[in-house]
């Protein structure tokens, strides 16, 4: 009885809290969860080590080092969401942007080019060191711009193509760039990429002595011990992600964002409404590439290296999986799904796998779960496409659309119109984008 009363009291208290919550202004209400999540994230380095390692199934939360990698991948997912989610352009070679970003950092902040000696704002690098050493903060920006330009260069010839052809072409670029990186150690005798060795080490970020003595910012991330450099890397990527999310949100709600979504919805109509298709699509590429470039450069300085094996086609699909699982175009969906998937990839599958092996399976039949990670992502992709194409947290408009579909919406149109136009003869013979059906 007492238990019941207590419960009732608690329930009434809860309902009172809920009531009070309801009276808060809309803006406060919608901002509160964001603030809480951000606060939890910012303080993560302080409590991560106190989380027990024997939780059921997942064992524990990711250690800080993995958390940094996870966030970098989430950032790439958010970048890809601009291309695939907003503009509806299927990019199967996003890893190319990642590679360009990473190698830009490699070129501009390491001893790779031993022929020259350029120093600009790099911290803790002896002035006698050969190579180009530019401040990582600047390198992040340069990498973003270089990658965006790369995105434009890749986009210009290819964005005229129909959706599935575009997917294939991006896939092609995604395959060529790693091979270029792998073989780029003897381009007419010039060592651009250092081949399979990769570029390593890459300078660490830091703020230098001036800022250190002025406001106590760390001189060099990898020298701050304790607390571990991972904390600094973690807070930095957190800041970068928040910035990315902010930009992505602003872009979505801008004139350009509307144009992207219009193109995704109906390319022909978008063109007829005065949207320059090529230019707008190219901006989507550039925007996605921009953030991919930052992420690539950041993980390069974090890992202190850029290696050709990092840029597998698998990574492109992995990122695509984040966007699909989260819901194409849905920013928060991509963040949540990205965090889950990246955690699975770097940590979770291993932990879950060992849990399965120790508790469910006999020692004679152990499964190496992480080995099948991409099979698992494949299953996620297919299941989502079959049963929940709008993703876990659908974009507002997409969610409405699904509800409509169950009642038989007035428009029996596909989610996306992949062809340039479906009117008779829209892409006539000989024009790019149209291939005779056979």
């Amino acid at each position, binding site marked *: 009885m007492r238990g019941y009363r207590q419960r009732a009291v608690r329930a009434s208290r809860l309902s009172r809290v809920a009531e009070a919550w309801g009276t808060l202004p809309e803006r406060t209400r919608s901002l509160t969860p964001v603030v809480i999540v951000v606060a939890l994230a910012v303080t993560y380095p302080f409590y991560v080590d106190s989380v027990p390692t024997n939780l059921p199934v997942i064992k524990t939360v990711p250690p800080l080092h993995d958390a940094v990698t996870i966030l970098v991948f989430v950032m790439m997912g958010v970048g890809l969401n601009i291309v695939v989610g907003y503009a509806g352009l299927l990019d199967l070679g996003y890893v190319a942007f990642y590679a360009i970003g990473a190698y830009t950092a490699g070129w501009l902040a390491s001893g790779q080019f031993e022929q020259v000696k350029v120093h600009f704002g790099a911290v803790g690098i002896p002035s006698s060191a050969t190579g180009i050493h530019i401040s990582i903060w600047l390198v992040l920006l340069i990498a973003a711009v270089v990658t965006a330009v790369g995105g434009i260069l890749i986009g210009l010839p290819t964005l005229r193509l129909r959706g599935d052809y575009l997917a294939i072409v991006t896939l092609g670029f995604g395959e060529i760039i790693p091979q270029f990186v792998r073989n780029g150690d003897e381009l007419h005798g010039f060592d651009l990429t250092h081949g399979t060795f990769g570029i390593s080490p890459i300078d660490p970020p830091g703020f230098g002595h001036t800022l250190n003595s002025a406001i106590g910012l760390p001189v060099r991330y990898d020298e701050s011990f304790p607390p571990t450099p991972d904390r600094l890397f973690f807070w930095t990527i957190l800041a970068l992600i928040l910035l990315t999310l902010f930009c992505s949100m602003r872009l979505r*709600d801008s*004139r350009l964002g509307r144009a992207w979504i219009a193109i995704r*919805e109906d390319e022909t*109509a978008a*063109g007829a*409404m*005065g949207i320059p298709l090529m230019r707008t699509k190219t901006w989507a590429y550039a925007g996605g590439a921009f953030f991919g470039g930052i992420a690539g450069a950041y993980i390069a300085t974090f890992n202190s290296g850029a290696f050709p094996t990092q840029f597998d086609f698998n990574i492109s699909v992995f990122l695509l999986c984040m966007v699909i699982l989260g819901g194409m175009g849905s920013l928060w969906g991509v963040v949540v799904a990205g965090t889950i998937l990246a955690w699975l990839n770097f940590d979770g599958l291993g932990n879950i796998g060992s849990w399965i092996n120790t508790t469910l399976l006999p020692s004679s039949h152990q499964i190496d779960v992480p080995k099948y990670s991409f099979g698992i992502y494949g299953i996620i992709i297919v299941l989502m496409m079959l049963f929940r194409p709008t993703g876990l947290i659908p974009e507002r408009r997409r969610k409405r659309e699904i509800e409509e579909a169950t009642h038989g919406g*007035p428009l029996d*149109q596909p989610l996306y119109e992949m062809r340039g136009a479906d009117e008779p003869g829209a892409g006539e013979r000989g024009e790019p984008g149209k291939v005779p059906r056979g």
Partner: protein
Amino acid sequence: MSEPAPTPAKNDDLLVAMSVRKEFGGLLAVNDLDFAIPQRAIVSLIGPNGAGKTTFFNMLTGLYKPTAGAVIFDGHDVTGKPPHTITKAGIGRTFQNIRLFPQMTALENVLVGMHSRLKGGILGSIFGTPRVRREEREASEKARELLSFAGLRRVDHELAESLSYGDQRRLEVARALATEPKLLLLDEPTAGMNPQETVAFLDFVSKLREQRTIAILLIEHDMKVVMGASERVTVLDYGEKIAEGTPHEIQHDERVIEAYLGKAATG
């Protein structure tokens, strides 16, 4: 049609198509068509299915490149220009089978139509500069006006696809008007409408005509609509112009009757 509109300063036609021709492979869709739309006129294009009306439309709006011939709009050669350039020059359109952006709200649909009239750049949008914010605010206001002008009330935040069929047609026109066209092309706007909706739509068109400085080119099947709304009618068959004149003249043209009676049975 009550008040006589002030006569435009320019006397020459708003749009002139000269010997426009379109071939698909071996198929001749539009054969050396000459066509003109006077300033502020309502002109109709009719003809049996497959006569080349929509093809002609698509050439005017840049969706197709003409095989030969030229299109002069408002004194500029727009032949073969991409759609967005033509839209910016002042031709707005609707589609035969409604092509709204289904998962955008009504308001957003109209805002997309304003794209070429807005200036907000990437950086301005990200940083939310006062100029961009003001522009966005004004654009939304104007979009709301357009919606209510088109007779769409309290649907600003409805998804386009959840609107009724008639409202979708209206929204498409509102979206086209948002491009600030001098010439509005309506491709079978009353197709699929019930009689009441058709009547309402005709009222809307005449209101449009009264309140805006705009010419209208109409493709229609419904003879009642054509005869009621337009000042001049052009009849196409097999890609060729077979007749042109006032609605009354057309109604009595033998070739037109033959073309319709001969083929109308199938389509």
